[in-house]
């Protein structure tokens, strides 16, 4: 997006550029009162004059933001005071214009594709497109602003807490709303405008401020995050469709978090991680008391979870002990092979070629639902007048599992062990020469990550009702790795977001799921090129990817200082 326009030109034309940009934004806002499409079968009711549909109202959020971003700096530097420097007004406006254009394009494309041709786009659509183009063109003439440093803004604690709670509430209702779109076009339009708003706020510096606020009020953050996640089933009015997706997302996210210890914290490439999830699932299935289970012993579920985790981590030790002495590519190849060996072995433990443990490719089906102290996970319960179905029950259970995994992840990260892992990642030889037992630490990460995957697998077995070897193919490992890389290696929040994106999009967008390999591949290439550190970047990881960037190093150091994120001694906060 760097059109080469000389800086002096930009400075000279900044006021007219802002005014023209305002015209563009106004056009877009005006367009929501017009009809966008000839027919009424695409998007929602965008075909009426004078009555904006909900989708059109959401569409207007970006242009309204654009108006603010363009109009406020017109007040002049003097009136803005230090706000002139705290916020990246121009860059935010530019981002806003570009995303407005993107959303407009998505909507027009949906209309054109859905109704068969651009003929069906009514004046409203064209006005909006013209407005967006004008806005983009004019904001290109704005001088680049320096990086926002809104995080320097001191604010009272109650404002910070209020902001965190507000963000969480928005997250809850946004997610509930987004999930309720049955129609892919609507989902995409709404999704694109949400992403657009998020990008603008990021440019604005809101997130750097929020991350400081979150770091200062960590308890509030963690508590409200879990309250929100816990409350989610209540927004679904007993609908099972979304809860099923949500619990799948959580299982996927929990596994990805375990992988994140290996990949994100220690920097080992594991391409067969799904095998550990599978080992946990098979263990739990065998011990579940299903009619197809090959062992008659049914331990209580907490014990099953521990056994499943232990079996997985033993496998981790088995595979890690000989291979962790080699590094990099070799480890990737060995783990890749291990994943396949696991699947094939499970396929063959059918009594013909060895003991019958898994019933071969049939797997173990009819796994009974869990039952804690009379609380049957398979039945719907009415809580506060809202039906809480089977999937919601498992969703809550997975929430607990994720909480445990996050605690393990964070506590290990902020400890002597975590420091050792960072040291290994940075310079393994130097770490060894400073007395760090690099082999043991790598093995610990490998076995620990496997344990967590085993635990997630134990729940997954009951959730899925049946466990078969072909659920645990290489592709799943690749997706887990993609979730970690896309979200941000070494971060919790990033991996949660990455896992959500990777699991949610194919569920909600049918056309997407047909091409999901292609599109995810493309996404990964783009990420690697433009943001290798992932959506949410871990500070250290970001520096590792931008080794030459000294300015970034200073900036990150200042930010770390502001947040007091050291690996010592008792961290005041967890930087999710």
């Amino acid at each position, binding site marked *: 997006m760097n059109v080469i326009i000389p800086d002096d030109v930009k400075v000279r034309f900044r006021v007219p550029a802002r005014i023209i940009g305002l015209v563009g934004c106004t056009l877009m806002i005006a367009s929501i009162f017009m009809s966008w499409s000839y027919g009424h079968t695409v998007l929602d009711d965008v075909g009426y004059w004078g009555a904006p549909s909900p989708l059109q109202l959401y569409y207007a959020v970006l242009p309204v933001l654009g108006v603010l971003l363009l109009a406020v700096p017109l007040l002049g530097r003097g009136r803005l005071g230090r706000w002139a420097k705290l916020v990246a007004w121009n860059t935010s406006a530019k981002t806003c214009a570009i995303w407005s254009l993107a959303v407009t394009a998505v909507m027009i494309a949906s209309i054109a594709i859905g109704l068969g041709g651009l003929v069906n786009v009514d004046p409203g659509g064209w006005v909006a497109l013209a407005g967006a183009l004008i806005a983009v063109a004019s904001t290109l003439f704005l001088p680049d602003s320096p990086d926002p440093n809104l995080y320097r803004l001191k604010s009272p604690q109650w404002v910070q807490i209020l902001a965190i709670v507000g963000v969480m509430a928005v997250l809850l209702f946004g997610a509930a709303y987004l999930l309720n779109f049955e129609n892919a076009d609507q989902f995409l339009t709404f999704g694109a405008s949400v992403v657009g708003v998020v990008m603008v706020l990021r440019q604005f510096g809101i997130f750097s401020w929020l991350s400081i606020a979150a770091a200062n009020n960590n308890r509030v953050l963690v508590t409200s995050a879990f309250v929100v996640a816990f409350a989610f089933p209540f927004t679904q009015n007993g609908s099972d469709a979304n809860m099923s997706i949500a619990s799948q997302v959580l299982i996927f996210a929990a596994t990805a978090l375990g992988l994140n210890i290996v990949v994100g914290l220690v920097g080992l490439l594991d391409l067969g991680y799904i095998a550990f999830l599978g080992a946990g699932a098979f263990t739990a299935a065998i011990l579940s008391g299903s009619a197809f289970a090959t062992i008659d012993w049914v331990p209580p579920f907490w014990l099953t979870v521990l056994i499943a985790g232990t079996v997985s981590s033993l496998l981790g030790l088995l595979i890690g002990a000989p291979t962790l002495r080699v590094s990099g590519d070799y480890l990737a190849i060995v783990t890749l092979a291990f994943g396949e060996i696991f699947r094939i072995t499970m396929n063959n433990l059918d009594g013909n070629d060895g003991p019958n443990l898994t019933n071969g490719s049939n797997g173990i089906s009819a796994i009974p639902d869990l039952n804690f102290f009379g609380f049957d996970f398979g039945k719907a319960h009415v809580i506060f007048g809202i039906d809480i179905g089977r999937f919601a029950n498992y969703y809550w259970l997975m929430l607990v599992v994720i909480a445990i995994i996050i*605690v393990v992840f964070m506590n290990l990260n902020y400890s002597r062990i975590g420091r050792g892992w960072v040291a290994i990642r940075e310079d393994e030889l130097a770490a060894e020469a400073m007395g760090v037992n690099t082999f043991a630490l790598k093995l610990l990460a490998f076995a620990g990550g496997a344990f967590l995957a085993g635990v997630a697998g134990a729940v997954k077995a009951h959730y899925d009702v049946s466990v078969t070897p072909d659920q645990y193919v290489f592709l799943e490992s690749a997706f887990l790795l993609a979730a970690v890389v896309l979200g941000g290696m070494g971060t919790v929040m990033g991996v949660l977001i990455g896992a959500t994106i990777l699991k949610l999009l194919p569920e909600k967008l049918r056309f997407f799921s047909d091409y999901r390999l292609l599109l995810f591949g493309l996404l990964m290439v783009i990420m690697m090129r433009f943001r290798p550190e992932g959506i949410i970047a871990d500070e250290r990881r970001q520096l590792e990817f931008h080794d030459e960037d000294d300015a970034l190093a200073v900036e990150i150091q200042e930010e770390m200082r502001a947040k007091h994120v050291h690996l010592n001694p008792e961290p005041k906060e967890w930087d999710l």
Partner: protein
Amino acid sequence: MSQTITDGHSVDTGTVLLGASAVTMRFGGLTAVNNVSLNVHSGEIVGLIGPNGAGKTTLFNCLTGLYRPTSGEVRFLGEVLPPKPRLVVRRGMARTFQNIRLFHNMTALENVMVGMYSRTQTNAIDAVFRLPRHRREELASTERAKELLDFVGLSKAADTLSRNLPYGDQRRLEIARALATEPKLLLLDEPTAGMNPQETRQAEELIFRIRDLGLAVLVIEHDMRFIFNLCDRVCCLVRGEVLIEGPGEVVQNDPRVIEAYIGSSETDDEPAVPAADEPEQKGEADA
């Protein structure tokens, strides 16, 4: 000032800390270190000099377990050292690197705390459940790390990323990190390379203070004034072999040492020196 301290200590020849006997290191056909024997006593500062490619760093790598010597043995406090850097550190020998090898994206404090790894015991269970031992040890090692940073004069830089530190500070931080392993013998590989005269003087003073803590120091250096000011004994390596070993003034005035550095008009073995440089670099990269 430095002279008096040196004199005071040169009398004291404590127990033999490090005893390398007949250490030989071959890379293929090239003998980088040949039959080198070297003793370091407690409380003594020993200098290791020699022209480029003489095998000084290779010898260091043999002593600290990065290389397993082709023949010969290295004893520390009478016991043969295991050829594993991590175990060598546990025995009480720590080193710095010629090309600074800090953990660049960790803060100064964290770098030092990594150095304490082998002297702390917190395990995964302690860390996950935040047991008292974890807490106690973290507090203690933070405290200790701050003291060490203070000792090398970096107390203000505790939360600075080590890559953002000036060059001289990085060298000092590496020393602090090595001290964090609680060594009895500290091996410094060109601690003043790239420093200006003032920083060099500070480094010199720092090494004396380290010795005053009761540590022995073995130091590789090219700065002759620095080395002869500092060291109780100096060992000169040339082409992998010990040319001469003895008190500073003796080595300083030995014509063979001068010849090794400057070359004499009759000798034509000049090319051998750059040739020997090769495996030393390569070996380090491999390790």
